[in-house]
């Protein structure tokens, strides 16, 4: 998965598990950028009576580097507070919830938004902002789309925010990929073959918890300018998200837990699938604890990704050129750690300088695509991943193909990719699987699946 349950420790702490991070120029508000960070992986919609929520004891942050130093010049912090209105019932809701202020919602959750600048100065942008409840079912949360729409808040400082449950927008054939890197459409070519078959979306019907903030572009550039020139370094920002917990916890033996001490980062995410696939098991917890500015310590895993060595073994005879390529993968280092410099792809750059840091790099001067291609830049759509990341981008196919070698010629024209490298995908041809939906407006991720409406698993 993008970063769902990707490391041993964070897989035990879903409330703090950062699953996907997105950054894109808002298609319907192109003078703004939307930043999204998802948490709480693989929510089964009927999962009550204690339905999913953010952690009051977690510090959620979305960070922006706008000068290429790998450090955050802008941080948006989100802190949550949950109430129990009636402690004498087991019910999540004591009647229908027809508005987010309904007293029938027994576990309302509220949050604050704080902006921290490069010098550490904090400005509170909003307080007591209401989340929507989870999508329970037609009796408890009728007209859910309208209900959740009430939880889109416009802040006086110009940002728009939303925090709450959404439909999972990341699609991937989990069941096959984690079965020795099988890709169902190509499994007839696998070392342990079986007839080719259509991909199966492993996240189908599941929800996540989303923190989304839409920010005027001028708030994000280093000098407050409006980014209009794609070649201008000021047009590029680096984005990542994180979750932190306080260093100490005290269980008082009476059902209460108190936290104390400084915040310690337990999860982080920018480019999808990095800690999932690039970073080895013994380093995953450590990777989650580190700041992007220190990512040069992990460069060997980007330069010689394990999966690039496995593909020729698991698909015998399919990737001979990749098998023979022993150079460091400067293409992956550029795409994932520094951005792509000018002069490599016509009309595009998202280079942030020599500091190696795993960031989603977004060139804000590139307008949203009128006809987006889910393969992003490798599909000829410069507004998609790895120029930031949109909610619908097929990052699994993009990264598998990149690791398989399609992006090596960007930095090494002598290399000819294997024919299969530009074909592999977990869904063939690449497409958004049936049942995955998005919104054309903020917060762009789709209405969450309802608990009552869900039929989670086939009999």
């Amino acid at each position, binding site marked *: 998965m993008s970063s769902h349950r990707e490391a041993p420790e964070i897989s035990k702490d879903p409330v703090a598990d950062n699953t996907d991070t997105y950054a894109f120029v808002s298609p319907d508000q192109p003078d703004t950028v939307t930043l999204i960070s998802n948490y709480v992986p693989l929510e089964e919609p009927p999962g009550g009576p204690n339905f999913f929520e953010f952690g009051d004891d977690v510090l959620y942050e979305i960070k922006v580097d706008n000068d290429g130093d790998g450090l955050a010049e802008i941080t948006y912090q989100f802190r949550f507070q949950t109430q129990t209105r009636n402690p004498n019932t087991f019910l999540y809701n004591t009647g229908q919830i027809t508005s987010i202020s309904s007293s029938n919602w027994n576990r309302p959750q509220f949050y604050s938004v704080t902006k921290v600048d490069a010098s550490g100065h904090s400005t509170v942008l909003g307080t007591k902002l209401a989340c929507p409840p989870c999508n329970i079912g037609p009796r408890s949360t009728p007209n859910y789309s309208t209900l959740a729409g009430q939880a889109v808040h416009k802040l006086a400082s110009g940002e728009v925010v939303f925090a709450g449950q959404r439909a999972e927008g990341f699609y991937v054939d989990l069941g096959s990929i984690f079965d020795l890197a099988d890709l169902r459409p190509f499994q007839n070519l696998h070392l342990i073959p079986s007839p080719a078959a259509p991909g199966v979306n492993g996240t189908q019907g599941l929800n996540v918890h989303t923190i989304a903030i839409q920010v005027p572009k001028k708030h994000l550039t280093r000098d407050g300018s409006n980014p209009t020139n794609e070649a201008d370094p000021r047009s590029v920002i680096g984005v990542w998200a994180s979750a932190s917990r*306080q*260093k*100490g916890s*005290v269980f008082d033996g009476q059902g209460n837990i*108190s*936290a*104390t*001490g*400084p*915040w310690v980062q337990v999860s982080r995410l920018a480019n999808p699938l990095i800690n999932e696939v690039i970073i080895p098991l013994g380093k995953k917890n450590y990777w989650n604890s580190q700041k992007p500015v220190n990512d040069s310590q992990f460069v060997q895993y980007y330069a010689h990704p394990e999966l690039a060595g496995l593909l020729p073994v698991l698909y015998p005879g399919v990737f001979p050129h990749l098998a023979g390529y022993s150079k460091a993968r400067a293409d992956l280092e550029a795409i994932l750690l520094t951005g792509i410099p000018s002069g490599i792809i016509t009309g595009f750059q998202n280079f942030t300088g020599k500091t190696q840091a795993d960031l989603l790099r977004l060139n804000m001067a590139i307008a949203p695509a009128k006809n987006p291609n889910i393969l992003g830049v490798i599909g000829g759509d410069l507004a998609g991943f790895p120029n930031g990341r949109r909610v619908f981008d097929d990052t699994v196919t993009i990264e598998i193909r990149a690791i398989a070698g399609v992006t090596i010629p960007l930095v090494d024209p002598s290399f000819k990719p294997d024919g299969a490298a530009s074909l592999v995908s977990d869904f063939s041809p690449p497409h958004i699987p049936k049942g995955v939906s998005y919104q054309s407006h903020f917060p762009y991720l789709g209405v969450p699946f309802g608990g009552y409406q869900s039929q989670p698993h086939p009999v």
Partner: protein
Amino acid sequence: MAKVTRRRLLKTTSIGAATVGMLAAAPHLAALAAPAAEQTPELSATSLPGPMVTYVRNLAKGEVGILVGEREIVYHDTDLVKRLLKATQ
């Protein structure tokens, strides 16, 4: 993390007073309390922003961490660490 000496911590912060107070308040740990001259008696006037947790960060260096609020204070006191160890035996 702030680095302070034990004496400075105890003399200048209410946290220090509370630390000593907590240790002294536990009968089993009474032996760990700092010398009387260094104690500040006004515990009733002291409040904490939540639990305070003190732990030994580095036994060999006599390094103690104090978690309080959103801070960690690193505190060096070999004698205190020895007394803590003794209390566990």
